């Protein structure tokens, strides 16, 4: 009786868990007995003392009885368990093939699941290292000019206004982006990730420094500043010396004094919530007059909800306050709203998107593995019925038989689980590559919680696939099974379950294949088409002036405009002249941001056209006249920039083909006047309009996935003054150097020379991001490639497991039907007929699974669309479905072929005589 067995197992587990309780119960029970006997004795007229002694005598040795009772519960059980384990090991060693397939199936499932769970554990379940992180919220601005829906940053002045007016937050601060800044004054200048935060940031998140102090509210960054450094920087640059406090160096030419060191493991996040970490924090003061002009959407407010305030309440308050701000600043704040988002959500949404499909995938793998194992166990139970019957007839109870079988599956699970955990280490390594830019990625590792998960999972699978065969075996009919030849008649009864399981396996594998297929399809669509330029033999390196300007920028506090030193242009000009004269250099060009890393933005209006409600958004870059030729970006119409396009000549612009097609559909763009507007400043246009002089070929400027309309300006034709915060693009420059022959032969020499030239012009200026264009593209796509690889590996595992399932069931079919096939041969059936008979079963099973799989995948298309990064591929893409379907059918046929072939080799005489 299964219930019986379950009750017993439950009682024993309870006994193990509640030993104390058991002990107490035992004590009380025996005590009761002795008390009853004493009373009885006294009723018989024995004196109180003697009555007690007599009761004890009659009872016997109380301690010994207790011990025996305890043993009943625990020891005897362990003994039988040990015996079963020994027996199970011997049985399994006798069929190593079976054991290997089962252990391998489980290990793959458990390993993959554990690896993905460890990532999930680190990235999603791991708490932020802040005090009460659940109270922290971020605020994004929703605003009018950006055509793409989604989040946007906030001007600092709004943070100050919101902080002052709100009643829902205990405190409010803000964080800026984590940018590379030049650290000078400590040996060779280097780039370090620096983050601007409001002075109250550290107290807001509730983390104390290990050394020194955090910022005071009035501290702000202008001509000199205080900074707080990370543990990493402290250890690498200052060798963990406590004397670091008070040390000064220059960050982007701003003299900076260290006042504090944060503890190891302290981490912040940029406004885009990637895994990038800052090593230096510098203060900015939202009250500062410089930010009063409400320009520069560059900061994310961070606030702590007051106790008891809910998210909707905070949101309501922000809506009210934003409306009030719009009334006070009708121009700047027109249409600007605020959205309150919990910090957790802001940080982890992206991680969830990339991890959930993987979690789904490994869940499927585990299911397929379990189904496989259950199927194998079923077949094995059938073929071992005789053994069970013999054991039963020798007196083994059903309970014992079941326990024995469960121990056998337990042993298999244990081995599978251990191997799985080993596999998961490798899996984690792979996942690390995908998730390196996720927050908390460095925490992805096997820890107690992960091991607990793996253990629980193994236990669950063991029960899942171990239970069914155990029940079935316990129902073995003694007499039937002992009769010779029984197996041939009984199989039909149980085949249904087996077939159903195989169909389920194929269906699950199909869903995984569809997911992986879609991703591969999408990746190919990104990689195969030309990026729009020729990346071969191009060396790139970045010469980025401090975005805050330093000595190249003249800033008047409180005024909105910033004047760029003419030295910047001269510097770039001289550098390019020098580089082009180097040995092995064919040509050199410069662009602000390399494709496919992105672009800045400008909104467009065409002079003479009616002003649109919403100005179109164009990707924007400054380039040198030589850029297009060096990158071999084709000219479609008009001309490239040349050296005569200076500030004194008429101002010009070049647009991309997409821009031309989209905004000049029915007219010639060449000669049209356009007015470009800075996107990160409200309502500020460039000082004068530009004439379109050329149309160039499309370049994958912002990501490999698609093309976005672009506009280019010459770096020689730029205004002297910019609205604050918009000058970064003029200060930044990436060199593209085309070499005369193999770039790898020249890269080292050219790099050394460029560094030398830069050092001569400005010793504080580092040269960074030195890479060949091809390496850079490879690196850029590496995350997507690894993701596809992982998903592909998962799908591959699923298919192999499903194929093993099909193969196993058909093999079993052939083995059991040997006699029937022999008769068929004897009656004159052709080999082909028998082959078809077996193959037909296989194809029917695989085909049914495939059809169900397609239906399942279609049902999941919304999930796939949401969570897979698909470019130009619909989640229902018929070509992908067809391709993976054909692949699966081919593999299923292969799995059918071997058993079908063996069926044709059945010797009718042997098969019949075997009776």
């Amino acid at each position, binding site marked *: 009786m299964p219930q019986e067995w379950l009750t017993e197992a439950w009682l024993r587990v309870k006994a193990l868990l509640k030993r104390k309780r058991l002990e107490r119960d035992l004590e009380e029970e025996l005590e*009761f007995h002795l008390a009853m006997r004493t009373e009885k004795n006294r009723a018989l007229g024995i004196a109180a003392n003697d009555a007690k002694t007599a009761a004890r005598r009659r009872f016997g040795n109380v301690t*010994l009885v207790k011990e025996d009772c305890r043993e009943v519960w625990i020891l005897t059980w362990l003994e039988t368990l040990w015996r079963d384990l020994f027996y199970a090991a011997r049985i399994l060693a006798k069929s190593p093939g079976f054991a290997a397939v089962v252990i391998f199936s489980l290990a793959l499932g458990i390993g993959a699941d554990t690896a993905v769970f460890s990532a999930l554990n680190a990235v999603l379940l791991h708490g932020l290292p802040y005090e009460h992180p659940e109270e922290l919220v971020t605020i994004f601005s929703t605003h009018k000019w950006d055509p793409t829906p989604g989040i946007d940053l906030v001007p600092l002045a709004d943070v100050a206004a919101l902080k002052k007016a709100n009643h829902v937050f205990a405190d409010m601060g803000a964080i800026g982006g984590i940018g590379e800044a030049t650290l000078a004054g400590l040996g060779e200048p280097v780039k370090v990730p620096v983050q601007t935060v409001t002075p109250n940031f550290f107290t807001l998140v509730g983390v104390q420094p290990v050394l020194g102090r955090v910022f005071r509210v009035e501290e702000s960054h202008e001509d000199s500043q205080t900074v707080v450094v990370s543990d990493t920087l402290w250890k690498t640059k200052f060798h963990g010396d406590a004397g670091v406090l008070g040390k000064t160096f220059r960050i982007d030419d701003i003299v900076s004094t260290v006042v504090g060191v944060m503890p190891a493991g302290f981490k912040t996040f940029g406004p885009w919530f990637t895994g990038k970490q800052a090593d230096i924090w510098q203060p900015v003061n939202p009250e500062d007059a410089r930010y009063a002009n409400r320009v520069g959407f560059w900061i994310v407010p961070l606030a702590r909800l007051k106790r008891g305030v809910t998210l909707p309440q905070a949101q309501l308050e922000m809506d009210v306050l934003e409306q009030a701000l719009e009334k006070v600043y009708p121009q700047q704040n027109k249409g600007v709203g605020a959205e309150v988002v919990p910090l957790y959500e802001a940080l982890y949404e992206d991680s969830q998107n990339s991890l959930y499909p993987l979690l789904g995938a490994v869940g499927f793998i585990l299911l397929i593995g379990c189904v496989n194992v259950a199927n194998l166990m079923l077949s094995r139970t059938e073929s071992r019925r005789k053994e069970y019957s013999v054991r039963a007839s020798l007196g083994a109870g059903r*309970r014992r038989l079941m326990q024995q079988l469960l121990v056998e599956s337990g042993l298999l699970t244990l081995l599978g689980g251990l191997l799985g955990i080993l596999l998961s280490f490798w899996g984690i390594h792979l996942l690390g590559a995908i998730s390196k830019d996720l927050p908390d990625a460095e925490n992805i590792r096997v820890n107690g919680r992960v091991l607990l998960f793996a253990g629980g999972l193994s236990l669950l699978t063991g029960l899942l696939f171990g239970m069914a065969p155990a029940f079935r075996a316990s129902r073995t009919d003694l007499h039937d099974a002992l009769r010779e030849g029984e197996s041939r008649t009984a199989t039909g009864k149980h085949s249904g379950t087996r077939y159903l399981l195989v169909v389920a396996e194929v269906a699950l594998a199909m869903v995984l294949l569809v997911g992986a297929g879609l991703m591969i399809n999408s990746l190919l669509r990104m990689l195969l088409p030309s990026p729009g330029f020729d990346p071969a033999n191009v060396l790139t390196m970045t010469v980025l002036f401090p975005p805050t300007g330093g000595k190249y920028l003249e800033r008047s506090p409180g005024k909105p405009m910033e004047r760029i030193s003419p030295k910047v242009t001269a510097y770039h000009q001289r550098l390019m002249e020098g580089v082009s004269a180097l040995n092995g250099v064919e040509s050199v060009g410069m662009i602000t941001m390399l494709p496919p890393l992105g672009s800045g933005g400008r909104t467009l209006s065409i002079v003479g056209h009616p002003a649109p409600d919403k100005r179109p958004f164009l990707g924007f870059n400054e380039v040198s006249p030589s850029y297009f030729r060096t990158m071999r970006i084709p000219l479609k119409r008009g001309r490239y920039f040349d050296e005569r396009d200076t500030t004194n000549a008429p101002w010009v612009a070049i647009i991309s083909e997409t821009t031309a097609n989209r905004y000049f559909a029915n007219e010639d763009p060449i000669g049209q006047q356009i007015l470009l507007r800075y996107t990160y400043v409200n309502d500020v246009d460039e000082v004068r309009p530009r004439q379109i002089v050329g149309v160039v070929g499309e370049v994958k400027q912002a990501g490999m996935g698609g093309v976005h309309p672009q506009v280019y300006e010459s770096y020689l034709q730029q205004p002297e003054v910019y609205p604050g915060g918009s000058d970064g693009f003029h200060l930044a420059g990436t060199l593209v150097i085309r070499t005369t022959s193999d770039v790898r032969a020249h890269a080292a020499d050219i790099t050394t020379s460029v560094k030398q030239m830069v050092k001569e012009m400005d010793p504080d200026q580092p040269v960074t991001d030195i890479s060949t264009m091809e390496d850079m593209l490879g690196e850029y796509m590496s995350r997507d490639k690894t993701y596809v690889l992982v998903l592909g590996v998962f799908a591959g595992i699923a298919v192999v497991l499903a194929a093993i399932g099909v193969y196993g069931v058909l093999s079993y079919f052939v083995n059991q039907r040997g006699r029937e096939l022999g008769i068929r041969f004897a009656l004159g059936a052709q080999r082909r007929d028998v082959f078809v008979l077996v193959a037909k079963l296989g194809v029917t099973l695989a085909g049914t699974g495939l059809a169900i799989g397609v239906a399942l995948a279609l049902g999941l298309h919304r999930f796939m669309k949401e969570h897979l990064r698909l470019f130009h591929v619909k989640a229902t893409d018929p070509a992908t479905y067809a391709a993976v379907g054909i692949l699966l059918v081919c593999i299923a046929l292969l799995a059918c072929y071997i058993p079908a072939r063996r069926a044709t080799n059945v010797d009718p005489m042997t098969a019949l005589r075997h009776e």
Partner: protein
Amino acid sequence: MTQKKSETGDLLRDTLDLLILKTLSRGEMHGYDVAEYIHERSDQVLGVEEGALYPALHRLEVRGLLAAEWGMSDNNRRAKYYRLTAAGRKQLAEETAHWKRMSYAIARILEPA
């Protein structure tokens, strides 16, 4: 420690199990009542120490032949009550039949022909 007991006879142990099952077929009882019942019915022939009853009760509970529950006794004390489960009832029937066959066989051998 257990050695000695098991030497005194598996037969005794099996018999004790059977007696307990039989006793409990009358209904729910606590250990003391089981002991009293066996003691009285056997005309005090089975001179078993009363304590030996408890490991046997627990063994039967673990095997699922008995179920146990805590309740109140007649004199208002907490006591552990045992009752037969379906499996126990079945076991009792099998064992009884077995025992009858055995004793019949033994009696036939022992009696002079």
